[in-house]
């Protein structure tokens, strides 16, 4: 018996090796488009057009980036996206976590009905047109509120956060109540610090959602001064591939952007996510998993 535990069979070892090779291959496939785009963005246009490289660049040419940073419309769109993302994430997290906290309380009257009503919104929705009519009926068109409010709370995120709050030992809060804390105080002082990994994870989810959002802006934002970066990016891609695009958004470019500039824009629009991702990624296990095991 002991020898079995210590010695692995040949088949098992072969499997381990193949498994690691296979997963490394998958990881490479995942990364290769990024690597290609990054190297294309720092390559001279000639190399890009003649496809003379794949994963790493042959020659370095940083002119696409120099060009990007001289574009006022891009800087404006980036600033817009930063504001949209920051405000939106704070707003979404505040409402989502507060709602999750309240709905986790067993003493809440009608809790079951309320939770059921939340779940139902995951199974059925009014769809695009009635949502659009409500949002524009509230005169949110051409304001960033149209990007924030209609997607403020994700029912799925709310349920996962609620589960991780429910998993906390109730004694902690009871002790706080004994000390004269009300719900709000115990929520802020006891519960929130205990679910920090969850908060980090879901803040990242919301932030990525706002940063990446494209279609809400297509629906609601017509004023090119308020465009977020994804719209700008889409217009550049369409222009450089010869398709139709809203040229007012990228008016200061003046001509059809060559392909290596498209690559540089793609890199530029992805960098903020890559900057935050490694710091939050280690919380995923705790954040998402703690919720989903019980969910």
């Amino acid at each position, binding site marked *: 018996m002991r020898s079995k535990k210590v010695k692995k069979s040949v088949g098992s070892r072969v499997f381990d090796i193949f498994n690691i090779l296979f*997963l490394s291959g998958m990881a490479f496939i995942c*990364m290769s488009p990024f690597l290609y785009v990054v190297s294309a963005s720092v390559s001279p246009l000639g190399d890009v057009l003649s496809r003379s490289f794949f994963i790493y660049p042959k020659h370095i040419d940083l002119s696409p980036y120099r060009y990007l940073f001289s574009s006022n419309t891009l800087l404006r769109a980036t600033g817009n996206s930063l504001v949209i993302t920051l405000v939106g994430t704070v707003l979404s997290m505040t409402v989502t976590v507060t709602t999750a906290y309240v709905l986790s309380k067993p003493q809440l009257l009608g809790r079951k009905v*309320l939770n059921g*009503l939340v779940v139902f919104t995951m*199974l059925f929705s009014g*769809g695009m047109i009635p949502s659009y009519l409500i949002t524009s*009926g509230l005169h949110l068109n051409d304001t960033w509120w149209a990007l924030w409010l*209609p997607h403020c709370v994700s029912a799925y995120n709310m349920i996962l956060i609620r589960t991780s709050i429910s998993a906390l030992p109730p004694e902690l809060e009871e002790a706080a109540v004994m000390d004269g804390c009300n719900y709000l105080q115990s929520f802020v002082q006891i519960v929130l610090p205990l679910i920090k990994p969850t908060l980090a994870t879901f803040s990242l989810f919301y932030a990525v959602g706002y940063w990446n959002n494209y279609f809400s802006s297509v629906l609601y934002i017509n004023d090119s001064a308020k465009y977020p970066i994804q719209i700008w990016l889409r217009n550049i891609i369409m222009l450089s591939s010869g398709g139709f695009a809203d040229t007012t958004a990228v008016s200061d470019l003046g001509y059809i952007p060559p392909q290596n500039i498209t690559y540089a824009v793609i890199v530029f629009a992805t960098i903020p996510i890559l900057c935050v991702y490694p710091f939050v*990624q280690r919380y995923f296990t705790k954040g*998402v998993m703690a919720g989903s095991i019980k969910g």
Partner: protein
Amino acid sequence: MDVSRVEEKRIRGSGSAKTTRKAGKAKALERLKRDKLLYIMLIPGFLYFLIFKYGPMLGLITAFQDYNPISGWFGSEFVGFKHFNRFFADPKFFQLFRNTLILAFCNIIFYFPLPIILALLINEVKNGKYKNVIQSVLYLPHFVSWVVVAGICMTMFSAESGALTGAVSRLFGREVRVLSEPAFFPALITGQIIWKECGWGTIIFLAALTGVDTQLYEAARVDGANRWRQTWHITLPAIKPTIITMLILRMGSFLNTGFEQIFLMLNSMNREVGEVFDTYVYQTAMTNGRISYGSAVGMFKSVICLLLVMFSNKIAEKAGEEGIY
């Protein structure tokens, strides 16, 4: 979701089932008063769901009206099922249905099993550090926007200078235009989904696997079960409930082909195979201004989705599995 159900059962069981209705009412009032702050904290979330989730559901009456933006919901004329009838009679209906079904089947057959297999393989990696690196890398594409995915795809396969255009053409032995040839559309969409979501999809299965008692594996090893049999008899059963939940949810969104993704990949050449319910709703209502017709199409899709999720939930329960609600 199981836990909340158990909790609710517990609460119901310990609740004051036998107290008289009057006492119950007084008690409820007392509880309301005591928990006043809780209800105040609920207001923002409540308003959100009321206005932006249940509001649009009420707004579905648009589909039964000849909606006119000036007179609004209260002034527009009711026309019953006119728009639905017109939609069902439209040849476009069959085309949308076919396109949506093709994409949905591609998703279930080619995408759905992959995260499960990948999760099983990641689970077999014993080196913690390597496992972490692999997971971080595989999760990453999930966080990239569809605009970027579409952009990368369009540049990679562009006819003039795409990095992969040559390779694909050689593979098929002729000049292939991946972006505009209708035959490639489902592969293009499914491929994008696999690249973007396959790694991220493993997280829920890996979460379920962290709950497996390691003693089970030890016992199986003692009994001489090899790793394949351990996977088959311990790991797979452990994630079976998760697989079924995901499958039910997938069924519920069967017709919800990723709207933004398809919207970004559509062009005049592939519209015939790429147009799905969601993009058609946008096209008719927002571009052509047929608001009521568009919301009828949208409502048809939402109702079918709801029926599908209820139906598959029933089947799961019949098969002795726990449903999702």
